[in-house]
């Protein structure tokens, strides 16, 4: 009844890790012509009209009577002890209604249970320039701003850690009093099979060191939050957050209120990209100020403050060693990463794991070893930005693949195509692959770019480069490990024929509200206009974990699918009785419920709802989604598993002036395997937006700190932080590949993040094709290209990039045999430590 039974979920909760792909199609089905009426249609998003008329209420658009304005005092020091905070002069200023310091909010918080290292206001130590120290609520924003100058803070500066290399040194004053060692927040050492033996079997081995600079989200909307306190004991917070559920948790924890007394409403986000995924200081502060004053309190960050909130891309140094046979088969890969985490934990532990998790899901890797380290430094904290921890290692992997192809004399596209991970397989690090459309992606972009005729054959200064990638469709495990669903939906059918869908998911512009409407309309034979969508309100909507990890289409989509199917089954039963036909023959389409064999024998959907309601009472259903268990059982297996992996391939064309190094990108061909398009025009928007953001990172975006000037952020404004305008944006030719995944709703996989990933390495690879030099560092700027060209002119390698990876004392490895070597997903490390079963350690295990 509901569309395509082969790819839609037919059971309830998905359980178990085995995936049957026996009936996988050999051709990619179109999203049209298979009986789907709404899924696959390029329809207006459900919120499109309110957005184009300016009616959408973003957080700062909300204003309540008697509302106060909040401003935060931020640290001018990168690292200091707070000796004294005197707020008496500020409190005395006319118009100031309340002042807070760290003493008022002593309970720490943080997005991850293992990194509860933040305070809403620093009680005794500041860890980066911009760390909040005190807060004012006043009757106008001007008075609140002026009052900040009247707060007296006495600091005792501490030595500032300026880089992850510096963070490796022993210290008496570590930035935090927790972590794996000194200023090293997290150290990871995972080994899947004996890589030493794998390298011994390789015909060719190469080592590369690459650097991926940090960048920020730069969502157009500055973060804002508004809190209201009822003397009856209820707190309401409206906030531009991607994760209302986690903000709800953080507020309950820090304010010591029962969660039932807190309502968090995520307002439509004016862009997120990961930058609004943490609970933030200003959200907790306005809540506390509202409780203290009994008046609504709003805080809207300035653009400069948004740069300090950050949580963006970790600057990451990557060392990677890969061994291949003559035909390019990877016998072993060993990756080391060093992440500059900034001043707090944020998602950093997960980010670090992600720098080593997804190397294995594109090309077959027989043996794999990953060592990752995240350092605390006295800079704005890093966290999840679009692609979360994976663009950096993907850049390294795809550039190295290009170099390997040249080394062994294979076409880079051919090298990749020969060794694709098979669909339905399990990788060396125990990631369960479902559908896998990368081959089709490569075919499309190479055909579009006329790769065979043009690669390596363009005149000096022009070149094309290829890179590929993959990304998760939601994380397999929740942030707080539990057995509950990751997404829930409630659905209510109205007597008038309308349907209301309630879900905790948050629309950050990606169109997640519309996905719910598409899926419900498809199952119940309705149009988008018949569906009312209520989302992201902890009082009204069932929990969805949030808009991160590209999880919403798959997870809330599956929950919506289940709720809609349950409603359909109830209505069908009663409609069948009335129509006097077997229930299996009842069809929902065109706002009617009718007999498939005799379409005239039917009734309007609204009548069918009434028929059912007369017997059953109010027609309401629920649906929920829990991802399948991952086959991995080792410590550290929690990052990487996903119900489905998307795939992308890109060819980038560049023009490089060999005299100046000036680089322009006229065109990018991108193909993305999205499983199935729920709405193709929305998918197109996500692909193009990802390519744009990848291009920005590839060419210009960076947020360095001035190590010689107190670790100050070098460019905390939109003018100085360069991002592509219309004049830098290139043409994009997009191909949507639909290789339906058994775990996705109607086969759908993610699209919001994956297509960013191949762009930076494809740019670097194209530069090599254009002028024969390697820039092993993002962003690829004219200056770096020029230095590489000069290096080459002097008869050297013709490379710009990092020269060394520091010695890091790694912990003993967690050793997990790959599935094809008899592994069952568990670590055998204990056995190895007991001696004898494995060979004596080889060079890779020293560090």
């Amino acid at each position, binding site marked *: 009844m509901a569309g395509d039974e082969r790819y839609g979920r037919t059971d309830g909760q998905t359980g178990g890790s085995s995936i049957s792909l026996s009936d996988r199609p050999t051709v990619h089905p179109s999203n049209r012509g298979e009986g789907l009426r709404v899924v696959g249609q390029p329809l207006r998003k459900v919120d499109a009209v309110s*957005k*184009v008329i300016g009616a959408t209420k973003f957080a700062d658009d909300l204003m309540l009577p008697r509302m106060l304005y909040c401003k935060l005092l931020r640290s001018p020091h990168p690292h200091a002890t707070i000796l004294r905070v005197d707020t008496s002069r500020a409190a005395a200023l006319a118009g100031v209604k309340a002042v807070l310091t760290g003493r008022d909010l002593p309970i720490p918080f943080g997005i991850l249970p293992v990194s509860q290292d933040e305070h809403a206001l620093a009680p005794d130590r500041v860890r980066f320039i911009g760390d909040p120290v005190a807060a004012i609520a006043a009757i*106008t924003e001007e008075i609140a701003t002026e009052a900040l100058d009247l707060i007296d803070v006495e600091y005792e500066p501490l030595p500032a850690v300026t880089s992850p290399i510096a963070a490796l040194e022993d210290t008496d004053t570590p930035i935090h009093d927790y972590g794996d060692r000194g200023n090293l927040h997290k150290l990871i050492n995972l080994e899947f099979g004996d890589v030493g033996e794998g390298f011994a079997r390789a015909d060719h081995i190469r080592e590369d060191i690459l650097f991926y600079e940090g960048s920020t989200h730069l969502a*157009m909307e500055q973060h804002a939050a508004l809190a209201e306190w009822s003397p009856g004991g209820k707190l309401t917070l409206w906030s531009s957050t991607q994760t209302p559920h986690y903000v709800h948790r953080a507020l309950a924890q820090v304010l010591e209120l029962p969660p039932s007394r807190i309502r968090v409403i995520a307002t439509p986000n004016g862009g997120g990209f990961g930058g609004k995924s943490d609970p933030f200081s200003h959200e907790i502060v306005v809540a506390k100020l509202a409780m203290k004053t009994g008046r609504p309190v709003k805080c809207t960050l300035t653009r400069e403050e948004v740069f300090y909130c950050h949580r963006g891309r970790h600057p990451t140094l990557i060392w990677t060693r890969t061994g291949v046979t003559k035909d390019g088969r990877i016998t072993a890969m060993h990756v080391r990463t060093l992440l500059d985490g900034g001043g707090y934990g944020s998602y950093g532990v997960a980010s670090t794991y992600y720098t080593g998790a997804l190397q294995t899901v594109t090309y077959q890797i027989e043996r794999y070893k990953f060592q990752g380290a995240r350092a605390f430094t006295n800079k704005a904290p890093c966290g999840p930005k679009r692609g979360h921890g994976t663009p950096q290692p993907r850049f390294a992997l795809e550039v190295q693949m290009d170099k390997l192809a040249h080394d062994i004399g294979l076409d880079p596209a051919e090298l990749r195509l020969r060794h694709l991970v098979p669909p339905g397989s399990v990788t060396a690090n125990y990631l369960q692959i479902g559908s896998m459309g990368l081959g089709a992606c490569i075919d499309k972009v190479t055909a579009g770019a006329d790769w065979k005729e043009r690669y390596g054959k363009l005149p000096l200064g022009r070149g094309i480069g290829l890179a590929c990638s993959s990304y998760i469709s939601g994380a397999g495990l929740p942030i707080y490990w539990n057995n509950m669903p990751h997404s829930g939906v409630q659905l209510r059918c109205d007597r008038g024929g309308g349907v209301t869908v309630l879900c905790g998911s948050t629309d950050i512009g990606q169109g997640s509200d519309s996905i719910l409407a598409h899926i419900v309309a498809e199952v119940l034979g309705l149009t988008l206009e018949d569906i009312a969508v209520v989302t992201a309100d902890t009082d009204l909507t069932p929990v969805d974990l949030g808009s991160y990890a590209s999880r919403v289409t798959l997870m809330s989509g599956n929950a919506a699918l289940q709720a809609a199917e349950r409603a359909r089954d109830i209505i069908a039963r009663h409609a069948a009785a009335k129509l006097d036909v077997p229930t299996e023959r009842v069809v929902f389409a065109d706002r009617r419920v009718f007999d498939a064999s005799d379409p005239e024998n039917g009734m309007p959907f609204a009548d069918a709802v009434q028929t059912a309601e007369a017997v059953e009472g109010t027609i309401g259903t629920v649906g929920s989604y829990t991802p399948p268990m991952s086959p991995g059982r080792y410590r550290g297996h929690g990052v990487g598993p996903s119900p489905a992996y998307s795939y992308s391939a890109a060819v980038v064309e560049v023009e490089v002036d060999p005299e100046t190094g000036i680089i322009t990108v006229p065109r990018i061909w991108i193909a993305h395997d999205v499983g199935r398009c729920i709405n193709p*025009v929305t998918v197109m928007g996500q692909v*193009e937006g990802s390519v744009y953001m990848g291009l920005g990172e590839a060419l210009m975006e960076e947020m360095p700190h001035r190590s010689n000037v107190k670790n100050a952020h070098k460019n905390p*404004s*939109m003018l100085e932080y360069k991002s592509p305008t*219309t004049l830098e944006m290139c043409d*994009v030719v997009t191909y949507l590949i639909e290789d339906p995944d058994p775990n996705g709703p109607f086969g759908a996989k993610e699209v919001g993040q994956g297509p960013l990933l191949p762009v930076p390495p494809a740019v670097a690879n194209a530069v090599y094709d254009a002028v024969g030099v390697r820039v092993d560092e993002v962003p690829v700027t004219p200056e770096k290209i020029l230095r590489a060209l000069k290096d080459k002119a002097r008869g050297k390698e013709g490379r710009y990039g990092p020269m060394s990876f520091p010695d890091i004392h790694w912990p003993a490895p967690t050793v997990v045999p790959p599935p094809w070597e008899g592994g069952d997903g568990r670590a055998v490390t204990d056995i190895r430590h007991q001696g004898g079963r494995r060979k004596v350690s080889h060079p890779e295990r020293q560090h």
Partner: protein
Amino acid sequence: MKPGSLMAPEKAHLTLDVNGERIEVMFARHKTLLEVLREDLRLTGTKHGCELGECGTCAVLVDGQPVLSCLVLGLACAGKSIRTVEGMADAELHPLQRAFADLGAAQCGYCTPGFLLTAEALLKQNPKPTCREIEEALSGNLCRCTGYLKIYEAVELAAAWMRGEQAEPRDEVLYGRR
């Protein structure tokens, strides 16, 4: 500014022409047009991204020209005609709004009002702009969601509609290249 002056800053009392209506408004003299529109007139369709004139998000039309409302004093707009996104649609969407909605040119929608008004000013001057002319006209507006591509397509489509042509989005714009 003296502390006391913040409590009761000197206020201007004037009549502004906003979206074709003459509106009396009283506001602190230092307020920007952006602040007057959002805070005093509650026209929150005009957004802000930096309040430093760097992103184009707060663009409105003053006497038909795109102006960054964060850089203009409200006082300076007396006697001028101001157009905000709220003035674009009546019972029907403006063709630009319709095209933006149809093509997903508004993703998060935050930069959209500034783009719509800037594009409207362009099309008034140049009813049949080339893609390059659209890019140049919109180069002062930042968008982080779309990569601008759907915005160009929407402006071209709306321009065709406004010229009275029967235009439809190209298949490739909606489904990608086959």
